[in-house]
């Protein structure tokens, strides 16, 4: 989801005010990713400038504040009270009440606005998720354990007590460890699963668990500090982005076909699952 995070952060600039002496802070949270914050902010800044030029907005209307740590994201959200933010679904569900967050726009990737998570093992080694009780599980998405337990496993498994968790900030390292037999299983998001074909692992892998469809998270807004007009304006700007000549290059670069206005009903089942998980 890093690519999505970065491009959404860029696009966010296009709803800024025409004159912005004080740039609006956008908090960008990418929990679990191996991303240098400085590099990420530079990349986002490059893209922000393109969008500002294309959208005829004043340069430097927005600045980004990037973090790959969930704890730091919580802290930054509390400190900065951003009008808009880019979060994971897990952080949105956790922080939505505290910061009056509402989803605004979703990315569409390979025609879909949802994804599935999979638990991968060496082929033939384990038959089901239940076989992995007490076994080691790696993956970048384990940065958000509550989310994995409540949403991905739909409350049926508590990752911390069911597995021996081996968090990693690099999916490729976790998969190499799985290949060598140093890990029993690795949990992957859709993008990581889709990239498996490009790896040259010795042992074939298979999924022993595939989650239900989970909506892709995009941009959220604080409904108490933004107006409905601002949110609509923002959503429209993003929806038109991938049709723009310059914006199209960015969209292609990041594998995002389009941005779609959020249907709030899509996230309702997630909110219920989260609440059910306590």
């Amino acid at each position, binding site marked *: 989801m*890093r*690519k999505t995070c970065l491009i959404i952060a860029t696009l966010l600039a296009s709803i800024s005010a025409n004159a912005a002496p004080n740039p609006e802070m956008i908090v960008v949270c990418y929990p679990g*990713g*191996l*991303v*240098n914050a*400085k*590099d990420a902010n530079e*990349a986002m800044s*490059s*893209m922000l400038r393109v969008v500002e030029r294309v959208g005829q907005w004043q340069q430097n209307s927005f600045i980004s504040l990037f973090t790959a740590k969930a704890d730091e994201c919580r*802290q930054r959200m509390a400190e900065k009270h951003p009008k808009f933010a880019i979060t994971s679904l897990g952080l949105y569900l956790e922080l939505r009440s505290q910061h009056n967050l509402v989803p605004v726009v979703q990315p569409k990737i390979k025609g879909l606005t949802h994804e599935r998570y999979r638990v991968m093992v060496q082929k033939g080694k384990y038959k089901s998720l239940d076989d992995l009780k007490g076994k080691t599980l790696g993956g970048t998405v384990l940065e958000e354990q509550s989310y994995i337990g409540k949403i991905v496993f739909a409350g049926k498994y508590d990752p911390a007590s069911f597995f021996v968790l081996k968090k990693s*900030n*690099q*999916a*490729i*390292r976790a998969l*190499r460890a799985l290949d060598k037999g140093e890990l029993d299983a690795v949990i992957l998001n859709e*993008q*990581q699963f*889709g*990239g498996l074909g*490009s*790896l040259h692992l010795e042992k074939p892998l298979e999924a022993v668990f595939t989650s239900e469809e989970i909506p892709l998270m995009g941009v959220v807004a604080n409904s108490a500090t933004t107006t409905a007009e601002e949110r609509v304006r923002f959503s429209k700007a993003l929806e038109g982005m991938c049709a723009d000549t310059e914006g199209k*290059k*960015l969209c292609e*670069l990041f594998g995002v076909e389009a941005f779609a206005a959020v249907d709030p009903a899509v996230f309702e089942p997630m909110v219920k699952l989260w609440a059910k998980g306590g």
Partner: protein
Amino acid sequence: MLAFVTGCAGLQSAPVRFDRLSDCPKQTADELSAKQSQLGPFSDTHTLECALTVLRDSQDIALLRTSLGSRLCLHLAERETNPEKRAKLAAEGVELAEAALTHKGEDEGAVHYYLAANLGLAVREHITVAMKNLDRLESEMKQALALSPDIDDGGPMRLLGALYLKAPAWPNGIGDLDKALELLEKAVKKHPGHPLNHLFYAQALWSEGDEALLSQVKAEFALGEKLLADGNWGHNKAAWKKEFDAFRQELADAASAPP
């Protein structure tokens, strides 16, 4: 000219015009070839510009098949403060390296090395162009590593390691911290006298995000910084110092950040 740079998507190529060319000494291609090893970080900028001008106008295959043109462009690009001119000089360096390869360059490893270094410099200001050229960068650096691993104090190891460190990680890109650590550790061990080998290795260790490695990060950084301060690195010194300063700041920011 751009069409000549096959495979390097989106490079802006147009020769940068230099001032004071009338002050340049009259040089033939043979004379330039004879003194090419003297042209480098210790040469003044005007001397490099004069040499590149001779090379631009030359039809001498023996000269054009060397890495000299690409190397001159790299040195000039690294000194250039105007981003647009820098990108153009680096793009020209890519072109000249391509031309050398078509003439079956005798120091092919060096040609691939300077091609990759110029390409990296040419695209670094433009994320979309950079992303489109990642595979090409990796391929050129791998060829340089296979043919001339020790050129420029382990330059191919250093550049390829830095590429794996900085590029977006799998599945979004070719970035791979394991490969970066392996290459940069090797560069430090085989070529311990180059400051950037230590700086890049420190940055790779830092990317692990492991508190236990902090003392090693600081030790590598300090060693590289001392080598830079004590050594005579010519015109490279100022640019490299900026890289050290930026990483020192990153470490300081992390130390002062709330837990």
